[in-house]
């Protein structure tokens, strides 16, 4: 593959729960992601898809294998990789504006530039007028908008999204998927997005990576050839349905394995 942005090279990960035996989460995993590619990872619960994201984020210590970004090894978290979590992870003691400003405060720029950038991103996620609200006063969808604004404000090269719409109701999820597509369309980034929603994966991805049941390996990758820019109407196309069916069959196999059912 040309233009590789991120490279997972024989990555293994084993964790030991506080009381219990070590569990192998990932096994010799290889994956290359191109610059500005939108890659979605799907797989059964507990297959290590979030672990993969946390390793790339530098949040978990990598013992076996290597993860490279632009050829440099990942050793710790950094502002080149922004992350959005399923449960928003907003600083509850900061207002919307203060949350969005947090990453900007660590960049060299004037105070007015910072304010301007923060406002621009609050407007981008359509939260104009909520600048001085506390996160506790917002709905789940609005909280996730704040988290997206906070992450985009610092302009990371790589966007990590850990089931970002998984805690939202169906309507809100649909709206945010659409907006994410629009934002990504105008501000390309390399995205690694984890979900267990197959439709969401097909709607968003350039490439869907299906992971196996634990220990997580890559079972298969599927190129999504739907044209861009995509709107929710694309879900009505035969091609979309075919992709979903193919991926769903792969995930289902692994989910059954994970739950101990013989196929």
């Amino acid at each position: 593959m040309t233009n590789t942005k991120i490279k997972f090279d024989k990555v293994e990960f084993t964790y030991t729960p506080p009381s219990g035996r070590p569990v192998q989460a990932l096994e010799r995993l290889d994956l290359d992601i191109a610059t500005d590619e939108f890659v979605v990872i799907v797989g059964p619960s507990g297959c290590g898809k979030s672990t993969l994201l946390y390793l790339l984020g530098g949040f978990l210590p990598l013992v076996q294998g290597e993860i490279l970004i632009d050829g440099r090894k990942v050793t710790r978290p950094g502002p080149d990789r922004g992350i959005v979590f399923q449960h928003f992870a907003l600083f509850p003691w900061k207002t919307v504006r203060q949350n969005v400003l947090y990453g900007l405060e660590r960049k060299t720029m004037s105070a007015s530039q910072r304010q301007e950038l923060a406002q621009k991103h609050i407007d981008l996620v359509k939260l104009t007028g909520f600048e001085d609200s506390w996160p506790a006063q917002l709905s789940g969808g609005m909280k996730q908008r704040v988290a997206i604004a906070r992450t985009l404000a610092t302009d990371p090269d790589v966007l990590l999204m850990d089931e970002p719409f998984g805690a939202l109701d169906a309507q809100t999820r649909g709206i945010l998927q659409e907006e994410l597509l629009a934002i990504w369309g105008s501000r390309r980034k390399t995205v690694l997005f984890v979900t267990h929603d197959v439709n969401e994966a097909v709607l968003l991805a350039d490439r869907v990576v299906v992971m196996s049941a634990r220990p997580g390996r890559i079972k298969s990758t599927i190129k999504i050839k739907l044209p861009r820019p995509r709107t929710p109407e694309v879900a009505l196309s035969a091609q979309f349905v075919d992709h979903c069916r193919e991926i769903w069959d792969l995930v289902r196999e692994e989910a059954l394995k994970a739950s101990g059912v013989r196929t």
Partner: protein
Amino acid sequence: MKSIAVRYAPIVMLIALWELSSRTGLVADDVLPAFSTVIERLWQLSASGEMLTHVGASLLRAASGLGLAITIGSGLGFALAASALAQRLIQPSLTFLYPLPKSALIPVIIIWLGFGHAAQVAVIFLGCLLPIILGAYNGARSAENTLIWSARSLGANAVETEWHVIIPAALPDLLAGIRVALALSFVLLISSEMVGAQRGMGFLISFLGDGGDYAGMFASAFVVTAIGFAADRGYLAVYRYLLRYREA
């Protein structure tokens, strides 16, 4: 206005009952002086300036002891949460000290520090330390990984993460610990002043009681109650303000 009247009606009734039982001779005057006698004595003690001297001495001790406990206790609690080494060094002493009634330390501390100011401050400090350490420790441990990771990926280093995420996340538990310590500080203040002080409300209560001035003793106890109540209300106001972000 009406709700306040309804809320405090039982207290008014209790005071009326108190006044009546003393006035009618149902209870002997030297066992329970009438409420009006107590108030009169309170006025005398206040007007002479005597009460103020003792209140001042007590407040200074309580504030010093509690202030020290908050500073050192929260520092220790955060260190415990942050470092496995600190935990190994400090945890055993904490586990051992936890069940000890802190007033049991009073005689020992008087032997070490004498009958001065320092002994009472030390008793309050030691007694208040534990709930504050535990509040800071539990609070810091409760900081969610995803918040810490968010800060790190927004460019915060380890020190910034401690100040901007872990300590604010610990605040609710820490403030609850301080509230427990505040109540404890009054108990320890009065009991330590009763045995080893020449000034302060604890001293005044036991001095007046020993001298048979029961009205004065009740008046002093009344003042302590009022200060304790005011301190707790004031603290609650600060607590609510600092945690105002939680109220949606």
